């Protein structure tokens, strides 16, 4: 008899939780929709407040926004899913801004942004058809491509690499050659190739001349001086150094206590955040058209974040990022530096940098003696057609897609990024 009670009780619990969950989910959707609606109405005045550069963009976008109103009323929006590499943070601000400001909607797209996790591989999600587009670093995506993922780089959002090798000033590491004989932290998992290429270029054998240390995804090892140089993204881990207190002085660390090797200066940088599309689906005219629109909306989002960095930080923070506000502001500023200026226009793939990325990927051996790629990627690995089309449309509307006048802000970090 009691066995029955167990099953009964469990079934009740399941039923109760099930309906509760569903309700919770429904309410969230409802809340989100109303927020989106409210935010869209807010969008108009804020766009007009923007810097002189954007006035053109605002003017161009204005008529389209009214069209969007009609389109959303008819519920004729095409659903599009974008997979990020990581959880919500300013690294992806342009996409969140494009959703928040209704830029995608104005182009007839209803974009859902899917956050990443520790084990989510965006390019696999894309190749398996779970999403329509994915954000991924070029070398990682090319490696997946060689493994059979049929994907194409359709817009190179970040024009520069954000990877640094950071060390304490008193270690006197100003260039890759100074790493000789030092304890060099690296992340592995395919994040280490710029560093290894840089050392190789400086005639250092990474397997003999340095002590390689597997680094955690934080800066504790360098903070405690267990290693001499640590890998860091300029928009994340580098900021973490400046958000940590020096136990001796009780004050935050400062940039002049640190030396930084920037792989962009060493000629071993690899392209990072790009928008990837499904190669097979790109044969389909409707998907091609949708891709141009998606890139166009994303460009508008990033242009908005260039000109309204503070507003974009607010958008990301409102999306539930737990990283502190000063950290997000720092990140937004650094991300803008990685994008702007975009000499050929935002999203356009620079052939020279692409070739450099492929060359490093093919020729640099990591600690296990592996290269990212065993052969050169084929011609469908990247395609500028769609980004060019989107750029032409923005240029025709008088929008600044190059950002040659972009001036980065100075961001002050608080303890813990708060």
């Amino acid at each position, binding site marked *: *008899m*009691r*066995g*029955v*009670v*167990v*099953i009964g*009780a*469990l*079934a009740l*619990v*399941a039923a109760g*939780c*099930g309906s*509760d*969950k569903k309700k919770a*989910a429904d309410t969230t959707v409802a809340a989100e929709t109303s927020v989106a609606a409210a935010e869209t109405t807010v969008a108009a005045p804020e766009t007009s407040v923007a810097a002189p550069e954007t006035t053109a963009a605002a003017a161009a976008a204005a008529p389209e926004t009214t069209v969007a109103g009609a389109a959303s009323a008819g519920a004729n929006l095409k659903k599009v*899913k974008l997979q990020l590499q*990581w*959880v919500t943070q300013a690294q992806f601000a342009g996409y969140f801004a494009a959703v928040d400001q209704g830029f995608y909607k104005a182009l007839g797209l209803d974009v859902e942004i*899917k*956050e*990443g*996790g*520790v*084990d*989510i*591989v965006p390019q*696999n*999600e894309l190749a*398996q*058809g*779970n*999403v329509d587009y994915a954000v991924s670093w070029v070398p990682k995506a090319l490696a997946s491509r060689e493994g059979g993922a049929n994907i194409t780089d359709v817009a190179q959002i970040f024009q520069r690499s954000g990877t640094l090798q950071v060390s304490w000033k008193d270690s006197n590491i100003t260039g890759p050659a100074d790493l000789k004989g030092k304890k060099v932290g690296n992340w592995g998992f395919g994040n280490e190739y710029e560093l290894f290429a840089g050392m190789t270029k400086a005639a250092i054998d990474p397997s003999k001349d340095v002590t390689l240390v597997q680094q955690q995804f*934080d*800066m*504790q090892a360098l*903070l*405690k001086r267990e290693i001499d140089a640590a890998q860091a993204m300029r928009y*994340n*881990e580098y900021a*973490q*150094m400046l*958000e*940590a*207190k020096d*136990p001796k002085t009780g004050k935050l660390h400062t940039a002049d206590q640190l030396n930084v090797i920037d792989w962009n200066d060493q000629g071993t940088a690899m392209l990072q955040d790009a928008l990837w599309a499904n190669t097979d689906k790109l044969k389909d005219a409707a998907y091609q058209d949708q891709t141009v629109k998606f890139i166009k909306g994303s460009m508008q989002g990033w242009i908005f974040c260039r000109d309204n960095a503070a507003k974009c930080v607010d958008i990301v*923070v409102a999306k*539930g*990022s*737990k*990283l*502190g*506000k000063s*950290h997000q502001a720092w990140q937004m500023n650094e991300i803008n530096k990685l994008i702007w200026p975009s000499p050929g226009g935002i999203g356009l793939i620079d052939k020279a940098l692409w070739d450099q990325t492929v060359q490093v990927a093919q020729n640099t051996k990591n600690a296990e003696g592996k290269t990212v790629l065993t052969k050169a990627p084929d011609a469908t690995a990247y395609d500028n057609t769609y980004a060019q089309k989107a750029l032409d449309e923005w240029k025709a509307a008088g929008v600044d897609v190059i950002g040659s006048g972009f001036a980065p802000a100075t961001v002050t970090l*608080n*303890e*813990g*990024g*708060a």
Partner: protein
Amino acid sequence: MKAGGVKRIALGLSGFVAMAATWELYKAIDGKLGPWHFPAHADDASMPHLLTIGRRFLQPEVRDRPGTVLQAVISGSWYTFRVAVVGLALGAMIGLLLAVVMERFRLLERAWLPYIVLSQTVPLIALAPLISGWGGGLRIGSLHWRPWMSVAAMAAYLSFFPVAVGALRGLQSPQAHHEDLMRSYAASWGQTLWKLRLPAAVPYLIPALQLAAASSIVGAIVSEISIGAKGGVGRLILDYFQRASGDPAQVYTAFIGAALLGLVTVGLIKALEKLLMRNRAAPGLHP
């Protein structure tokens, strides 16, 4: 009885105090015994003072925004708890069903059991993104697959195993003379299951459910981290870990939340045991 209760609470508390004292003692004597340090770091960035962690609970989670860390950890733990319970219920039902079928057909027991054991050797972090990917495209009517469902599925995947194995042993536990008695009544298979096997399985099910409950919490938290699903305490660990360099105490708040969550869940199963076993004779007195 009452004195026993007080004693138990006192014992539990003293265990907690001893743990806290060990933590602070380890920090205090590190580096003081000689010119060397303990192999595991004891500095404030690796092991914040308990007072710092406690204080962190009461401070805002993100500056200039409402809500303390305590609120965030409680609401995250509550969310994970609900998802894990859905997974546990699902897993327990599947496990029980498998056990009943395997008990009925010995051939199936021999065919399935190795695979049931094998299922637990598949690493969770490999499976979670797969489930999340498969589920992403799933749509049943107006019901969309949501990330929390992937998390619940992983919790079920971990929790069905102890229930299946425990219930099978329990269902097989009646002795020959018990079964003979049922046969002498011309009881059907269903009646024998209802009146003999399932009640006999309860003492085996309770520890199995305790294991399953702990597994479901672990499964839920690991999956939340793995696929980045929002809302739960696993995601908080991930979020807070990102800030660990500058705010080491915050990670520990989420760890404490996750640990308490596991304790509470197992405690609830214990309470269920009391409820179900209240009319039973002590095992020793059983013929």
